[in-house]
């Protein structure tokens, strides 16, 4: 794919993804009104608002960094053999690195806005970053081991050649990915940095166009996490329905799964999230690596390489 069409495709994917995720979340929120909406809370785009004493550099840069991180992550997610922004050799690792920019953006925006709620959101965002990075890395490692590559397109090809979706071979890895994906996207049980108790954290300090940029970034974030889940565990665009439609349906499935699965658990405070992550998810992740390693020695999913 040439440079210009790749750029156009990624921008379209970001916008479309944000719209889809936003629509799904608003639709599902009607079914469970008592759950804290977190980042999906309504945002005042009409009125232009800004705190009086901000750190100007961080306050205005934060929404741009959030959208920057999510758009860069979408470059690597394939919706078809050729329909991908850039098939990087280190695609999956790149995806994990780039999505951390959203946490950086919330930290900068929170600190820059200089209101008590926003600064509290900054500390909670850093705490949540500390909670989700290690277990998420351990969850993503499973499919990489089976596909013997970091490139996202090659992962989908490997699942296609082996005729095996990695969710079947690694259910533990998939469950771990959904849990840490909810942490990474600040959804359902882990909405602490955007809790309504601190009036939506960073979102309370922004108005007008910047609030719109935050809304697009946070919705596209959930879409990106769901799309990567489909690529890593559900065979991406190579499923029964080939190409973008199949990939879109799988992404929608994972998206609905993340949003609904979170609604059954009560909201976790930052301390509980950290304790859950380090006491439960990291040990489970380490076991998952050992488990997948032994599965591979038994030849599961290796028919793609013989």
């Amino acid at each position, binding site marked *: 794919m040439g440079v210009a069409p790749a750029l156009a495709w990624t921008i379209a994917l970001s916008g479309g993804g944000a719209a889809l995720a936003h629509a799904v979340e608003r639709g599902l929120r009607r079914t469970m009104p008592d759950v804290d909406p977190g980042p999906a809370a309504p945002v005042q785009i009409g009125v232009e608002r800004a705190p009086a*004493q901000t*750190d100007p550099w961080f306050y205005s840069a934060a929404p741009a960094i959030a959208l920057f991180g999510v758009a860069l992550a979408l470059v690597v997610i394939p919706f078809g053999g050729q329909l991908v922004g850039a098939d990087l050799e*280190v695609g999956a*690792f*790149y995806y994990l690195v780039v999505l951390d920019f959203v946490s*950086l953006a919330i*930290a900068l925006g929170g600190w820059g806005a200089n209101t008590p709620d926003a600064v509290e959101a900054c500390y909670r965002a*850093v705490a949540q*970053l500390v909670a989700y990075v290690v277990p998420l890395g351990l969850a993503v490692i499973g499919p990489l081991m089976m596909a013997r590559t970091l490139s996202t397109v090659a992962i989908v090809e490997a699942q296609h050649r082996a005729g095996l979706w990695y969710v079947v071979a690694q259910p533990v890895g998939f469950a771990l990915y959904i849990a840490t994906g909810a942490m990474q996207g600040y959804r359902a049980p882990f909405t602490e940095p955007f809790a309504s108790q601190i009036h939506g954290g960073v979102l309370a300090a922004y108005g007008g166009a910047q609030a719109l940029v935050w809304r697009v970034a946070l919705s596209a974030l959930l879409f990106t996490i769901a799309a990567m889940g489909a690529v890593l565990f559900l065979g991406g665009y190579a499923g029964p329905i080939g190409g973008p439609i199949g990939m879109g349906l799988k992404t929608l499935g994972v998206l609905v799964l993340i949003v609904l699965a979170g609604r059954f658990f009560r909201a976790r405070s930052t301390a509980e999230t950290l304790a859950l992550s380090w006491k439960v998810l990291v040990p489970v992740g380490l076991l998952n690596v050992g488990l997948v390693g032994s599965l591979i020695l038994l030849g599961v999913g290796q028919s793609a390489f013989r």
Partner: protein
Amino acid sequence: MEIAPALQIVLFAVFAAISVLGALGMATTMSMFRSGVFLMASFFGVAALFLLLLADLLSLLQVMMYLGGMLVMILFMVLFSSDPGGSMMAGMMTMTRVEKAFSRGLSRPSPMATPHGAGGGMDMAAGHDMSMTTPARKWARHFGWAVAVVLSGALVLRPVARATERALPDPRSPERIGDLLMGKYMIAFEGAGLLILLGIFGAVLLARPSERPDPEDRGHLRAAVDAPPPPPEEG
């Protein structure tokens, strides 16, 4: 190379400027939070230079490691410092031209008497030297300039002779690094694991100075943290 030479030079200039200015900003800005973010920008500039040198896995490693690491360090700075935002100090200090450039937008007429958080305890009357830099600042600046001029002078006057450029590196970098880690450098691989383990031991032991592991009543510990700070003696 794959991208046009002109574009390469422009990209190199931009990323080099980001990394050098970021490091300079870290050393000079008044706000602790800003110095942490400047340093992070500097590391991202160096990561982009790694990318120009076709070391893609290293570039991602650099970004991932220092994004998390710097946010944690900034959090610790906020915990330790009494004026993390730098708004009070920016108004009070006499700043050099460079420091003023990197602290713009911070100083506002915040009234002196504003209560400053838990670690506050600031008595202006004693003229306690609150500045973030040691009195050795002037001498240090000349020392820094001397090192910079000597090193870059040597490099520019006598460029590295055999800098003839060989073939492009193998694009499959994760595979090559994995082979090396599993083969020739297995000791480094296990050694790094051991080093990480020792790091965890050290960090946990130092940060949690409880004699018996996990004593139930943490009174003395919490008292140490919550106790009002002793009046800052001269020094």
